[in-house]
């Protein structure tokens, strides 16, 4: 235990480090770290472009440990979760994963995350933000135990076309039989690894969950197994590029959690975020159902859509207008990137009705620096289908050796 005088000395090192930190620091060439959920994490190891292409061309390793993990267990665990989230979880089988969102009574989204069914009465919920307060309040009346287990599980995302081949090389027999959103347990040189076919890249990929004691050994084994398959550690910057291509949302970028929004009219419903496919009105009562049903009936005032924008300058934070002269403002860009794989200038944007309809033309106000001489450009933008990038290999089981 700590010395008494050192109890609560968090001010000395406010951010925790993950079990992979030593390895990551050794690989970091540009010393670029960012805080995420209370941990020091890598923004860029060497070069964003190279890290990006590791995901799309070979395979990438991303340290997922700071992802907030909750263990939800007890006789009422299934009923509890089914009331918490908007999706029907009654169909979720053991060893399957479901992407879910949960809302407050107003139908405003609190967060999104993945639910892993570990056993009949045991689940793991992974989210980007902490929300024990909400989960515990929601648990009143249910025979269920909820605890945060973030520090008890180390996690790596192994993503990219060669990811399955690397896991095979690591000796995880049968890993290729995992279907998307399925997970299983594998042994590799004394380590017990939970492998799920999930990810945040929209590509073929897996997430590996181990006891933190085995974290460094897993890292080393993966790197060795992947050396000939182009394996590369990546930081958050490259991940952000691929997740926009895949059309995935990030809290505090694409939406603000209803539990932390201060201003009126800034929280969003899953319908407005284009996640209607996650809302099941037929499954019985869930938190936010009445408000969402009402919104569903009345139609949406705004929706998050994909944009294809002229030019090659990412339209980060751009305001959107109906016409080139910018007379009427109708929304704003939440995430934007030049997609090196699609060769398109893409963005996620919150757009007011009726302009969010597929095929609508909008205008984005983009600021360009020409060697510090700033220019304002109105760029034509078209509402297009998401995801922007969805390779067939992400679904094929067993995956080939791409």
């Amino acid at each position, binding site marked *: 235990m700590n010395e008494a005088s050192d109890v*609560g000395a*968090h*001010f000395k090192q*406010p951010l925790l480090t993950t079990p992979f930190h030593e390895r990551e620091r050794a690989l970091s060439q540009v010393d670029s770290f960012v805080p995420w959920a*209370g941990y020091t994490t890598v923004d860029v190891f060497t070069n964003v472009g190279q890290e990006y292409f590791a995901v799309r061309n070979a395979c990438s390793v991303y340290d997922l440990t700071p992802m907030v993990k909750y263990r939800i267990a007890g006789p009422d665990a299934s009923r509890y979760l089914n009331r918490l989230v908007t999706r029907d979880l009654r169909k979720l089988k053991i060893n399957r994963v479901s992407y879910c969102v949960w809302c407050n009574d107003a139908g405003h989204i609190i967060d999104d995350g993945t639910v892993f069914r570990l056993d009949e009465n045991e689940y793991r919920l992974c989210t980007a933000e*902490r929300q*024990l*307060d909400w989960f515990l309040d929601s648990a009143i009346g249910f025979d269920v135990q909820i605890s945060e287990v973030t520090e008890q599980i180390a996690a790596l995302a192994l993503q990219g076309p060669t990811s399955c081949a690397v896991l095979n090389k690591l000796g995880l027999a049968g890993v290729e039989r995992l279907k998307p959103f399925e997970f299983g347990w594998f042994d590799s040189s004394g380590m017990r690894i939970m492998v799920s076919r999930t990810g945040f890249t929209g590509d073929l990929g897996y997430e590996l969950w181990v006891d933190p004691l085995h974290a460094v050994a897993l890292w080393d084994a993966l790197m060795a197994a992947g050396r000939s398959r182009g394996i590369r550690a990546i930081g958050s910057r490259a991940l952000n590029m691929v997740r926009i291509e895949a059309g995935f949302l990030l809290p505090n970028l694409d939406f603000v959690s209803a539990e*932390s929004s201060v201003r009126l009219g800034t929280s969003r419903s899953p319908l407005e975020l284009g996640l209607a496919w996650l809302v099941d009105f037929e499954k019985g009562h869930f938190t936010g159902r009445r408000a969402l049903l009402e919104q569903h009936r009345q139609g949406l005032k705004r929706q998050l859509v994909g944009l294809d924008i002229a030019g090659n300058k990412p339209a980060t934070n751009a305001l959107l207008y109906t016409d080139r002269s910018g007379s009427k403002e109708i929304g704003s860009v939440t995430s934007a990137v030049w997609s090196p794989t699609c060769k398109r200038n893409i963005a996620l944007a919150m757009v007011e009705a009726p302009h969010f309809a597929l095929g609508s033309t909008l205008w984005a106000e983009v600021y360009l620096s020409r060697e510090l001489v700033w220019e304002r450009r109105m760029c034509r933008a078209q509402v297009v289908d998401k995801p922007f990038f969805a390779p067939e290999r992400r679904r094929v089981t067993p995956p080939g050796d791409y």
Partner: protein
Amino acid sequence: MGERSKPDVLIVGAGHNGLVAACYLARAGLKVQVLERNPYIGGAAVSRKLYGDFTYSNCSYVCSLLRPEIMRTLELPRFGLQIIPYDGGCTMMRDGGHLALYDNHDALRREIARHSKRDAEAYDRYARDVIRQCKFIKPLLMREPPDPTSFKPRDIRELLYLGGHFQRLGEARMYDTLRFWTMSAADFLDEYFESEIVKAHMAGSAIIGTALGPRSPGTAYVLLHHYMGDIDDTVGAWGFARGGMGAVTRSLAASLQASGGTIRTSAGVERILVRNGRSVGVALADGEEISARLVLSNMDVKRTFLNTVDSKELPEDFLRQVRNFKIRGSSGKLNIALDGLPSFPAIPVGSPSTRGDMHVTDTIEMMERAYDDWKEGAWSRAPYIDMLIPSQIDPTMAPDGKHYMSVFVQYCPYQLASGPWDAAKRKAFGDTVIDTIAQHSPDFKSLILHAEVRTPFDIENEVGLTEGNIFQGELTFDQLLFNRPIPGYAQYRTPLRGLYLCGSSTHPGGGVMGAPGANAARAVLRDLRLTGT
């Protein structure tokens, strides 16, 4: 009003609100003179050297609520005002534990999680709700509250503004606002937190300067009142005025003088002169009479109308309401010169939390018991203290290596059940506070070079605040907005033409905000048709 030397406006009291009003009026071209009873200016925003080279902020001691638009318009930074935020704060517990508050969100979450993991995450929801309510109140601070019974276009316009502003909150938050303005701090905090120490730390700002306990209805608003300031857009941040709180009034005085206004010290106003229902000037203690078109009183509403205006000149219902205005003494203050920095073994060495506000009340229960003592007419045996050592951040407050400690004490009555205050009782009160601190700092007593002990009775005598009430009147819902100070007289005007109130007895209340002074000046200028609105 022929002769040039005669001022247009006399302001009674050189506290921060009197000076703010004076500055705005002088900038509008009026000839303004401020009269101050003491040989020094500042009122309750004052820096004094009472021992060696130590500077005491001997009344108000930290700054957050002073409206940024006032600092900007009156160019206070140019005249020497600098506000430096401090980070953190802590409560030391009776069992040797502690809770620290940090600016860093992750450090703060981990710190609260030591006491309750759930509270660490509920803190974000708490901060969200407090900020939501602050965002509602803030635009109302620099406005004259409307008279809901009036049909004047201006009042109707302001009522519509208030109504529209309220409407824009949305249904759920309208309910929240009404609950917030009326509930107790303890009930409010119970809706977020389970840990006693977390609740106790947060509840402190709900009782400061208030003759109510944490379980009294209305204290949730007082908590909010302490959050509605900001420093450089950080909502709820508190800081030190460099050079002590006197720097606020010094910079205001310099701004005033640059606009042609004048200040007379040692010029105590004995009477506000009234002729035919109109104030025509003042009489000083030495008999000198000064006439002026207008008089603004920075004194509280009771001192103004019960001590300084002839009651024969005032309507009886009005006087009755003035007498009923709640302005109770509940706080004391110690200013201590220290030979070095005291140690606090509960706090990890090097923690920034000791550079902020330090407390030793670790449960709501303990705070409520402290209030019980006050109700019995005694100072709290285990008082709530808000203790800071500004010299850790502001090097001008104490000689090198020495320190100045400001200790705000709640609760201390204006009138003791045991009879009038005297030197022995003042010392006993001071010793209670010093012993309380010494329980958490073994070397504290040995470092004391000098201690100034101030009871509510002393504060009234020195500063002129009735009962030593730091807000010039309780901040309860019955005395806020269009009810402050008196229903029907919430617009800085009084039953006497030419006499205005500009102190914290008026909307939006105390806390070294300056808003009452600015709003009063605007009302005056409107009456003189010197502004459009």
